[in-house]
């Protein structure tokens, strides 16, 4: 296996066949590792902006690594791998100031089937769980699993629980969910084992938006705002009609 280690700044270069490299900074969820991922992402974007690394077609940041997909017909993969390692070693840790969002969530029982169970298990009241959810600033580490699905860190330890032992066959679209120390939103109805604590009326993904189909991006920060059922219903209907501008949820601009 092609892998290179650096003593001073451990970086592993792992091949995914002859069309992608994963540059791995570590094996755990850790803001410090993620900052290095974003540092490399920035450095690679700068290099591509100069017309370098022309074979690169897709760049995917995760908690702890950056996967760089390339077209081997458009450039030498081995040379790209060496460039990535050099960039990773020279790039600093970057805490990207992404956008800040305030996104409405309704915590009503029928939209939050696991809320009472989580509260009881953790010895909290329902209101205390909602208070912790809405006073936490979550950070988007990566988008993955399905289009627009944000993996967000920052869940308070008092709310941590493992995934459901038996995943649901169909999680409703736009469910706000937690698992371990993570929080997420299911953009689509899908099977899933995360615990459902509420639902947002805002679509997480729109293929019609050619420049930014996914609402959230790696580095963004999200606060939840509790809304009642009437507001949820009204916003959901308005969102379906495309009448809620994404910008109306932005608290602070930033680099997506």
């Amino acid at each position: 296996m092609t892998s290179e280690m650096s003593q001073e700044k451990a970086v592993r270069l792992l091949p995914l066949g002859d069309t992608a490299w994963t540059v791995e900074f570590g094996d755990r969820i850790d803001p410090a590792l993620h900052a290095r991922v974003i540092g490399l992402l920035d450095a690679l974007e700068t290099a591509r902006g100069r017309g370098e690394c022309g074979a690169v077609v897709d760049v995917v940041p995760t908690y702890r690594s950056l996967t760089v997909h390339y077209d081997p017909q458009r450039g030498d993969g081995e040379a790209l791998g060496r460039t990535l390692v050099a960039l990773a070693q020279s790039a600093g840790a970057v805490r990207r100031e992404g956008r800040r969002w305030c996104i409405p969530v309704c915590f009503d029982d029928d939209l939050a089937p696991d809320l009472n169970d989580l509260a009881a298990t953790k010895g909290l009241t329902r209101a205390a769980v909602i208070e912790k959810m809405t006073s936490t600033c979550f950070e988007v580490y990566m988008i993955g699993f399905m289009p627009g699905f944000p993996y967000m860190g920052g869940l308070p330890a008092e709310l941590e629980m493992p995934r459901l032992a038996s995943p649901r066959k169909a999680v409703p679209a736009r469910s706000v969910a937690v698992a371990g120390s993570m929080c997420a939103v299911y953009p689509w109805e899908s099977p899933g084992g995360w615990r459902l604590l509420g639902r947002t009326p805002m679509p997480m993904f729109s293929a019609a938006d050619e420049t930014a189909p996914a609402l959230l991006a790696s580095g963004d920060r999200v606060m939840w705002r509790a809304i009642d059922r009437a507001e949820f219903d009204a916003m959901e209907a308005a969102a379906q009609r495309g009448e809620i501008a994404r910008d109306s949820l932005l608290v602070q601009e930033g680099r997506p």
Partner: protein
Amino acid sequence: MNGLVEVVNAGIANSLQDLGRIGFRHMGIAVSGCLDPWLARCANALVGNDADCACIEIRAAGPSLAVLSGPLRFALAGEATATRVSAEGDETEVLPWQSVTLDAGDELQVGFQPGGTAYLAVSGGFATLLQLGSRSTYLRAEIGSAISFGLQIPCDVASGPERAAAPWSAGSGLVRVMLGPQDDHFTPAALEDFLAGEYRVTPQSDRMGLRLEGKALVHRSPAAADIVSDGVTPGVIQVPANGQPIILLADCQTVGGYPKIATVISADLPRLAQLRPGEAIRFAAVDAAQAAAARAELAARWQAWVGDLG
């Protein structure tokens, strides 16, 4: 775009595909695209199209299309055959590897595809709505047009001569892989088993992945059966705790939490499109230089095939 077809029978497991949706994987959007892009290229070449034109990928019961505005040129690549039904009701067989011209009022009824993958191309390509740079269907995110009854698809009227060619094959033999990215999560014995053993394709396979069945591949420890999710790509072979490998294909997710023992090289990836449930495959490990040689050999073979196009 002065040609038009209408789907009069959607068939089963058909989808519109082109070379894929590139540049959106950081948003969780699968690359999609043809499982066997070379075979789709053949179908396109037979009707005089560029390689990036969208085709219909046929994986089970093919669709039936009515020509509303023509004449249109069609070609099948793969093992699928079709019947041409004229406006008067006359039926003629349409074989793969040669293009045919259908007039307005004619219908093309593509038959059953017994596993594997075939492609149907039309003059100008099936010009459905371009979304995020591609016409590939990715129903999970409601991207692209589903082939459904009544769908009308623009295309071009036929131009140039009808063409025929020898069948193209993506090749056979051992499926070549490069080890990694997480081959170090497996015992040395598991790596030997993986390269020596035979793995059978199960029916639980689709455009997202081929689920295989064979000697279980043992992780170094129970904890080594999970990783903090990292990037995946079509061709990676992930191994969950049960030890049975899954080869991810075009519609796969963008990140995954299972260790990946190896990745099928790009030159051999199209071959996986032709595997049917019950078929067995074996793997061989190669290095980057061998993967590059395999790509060059495939490209040369393609040039020769196009050169012979009648």
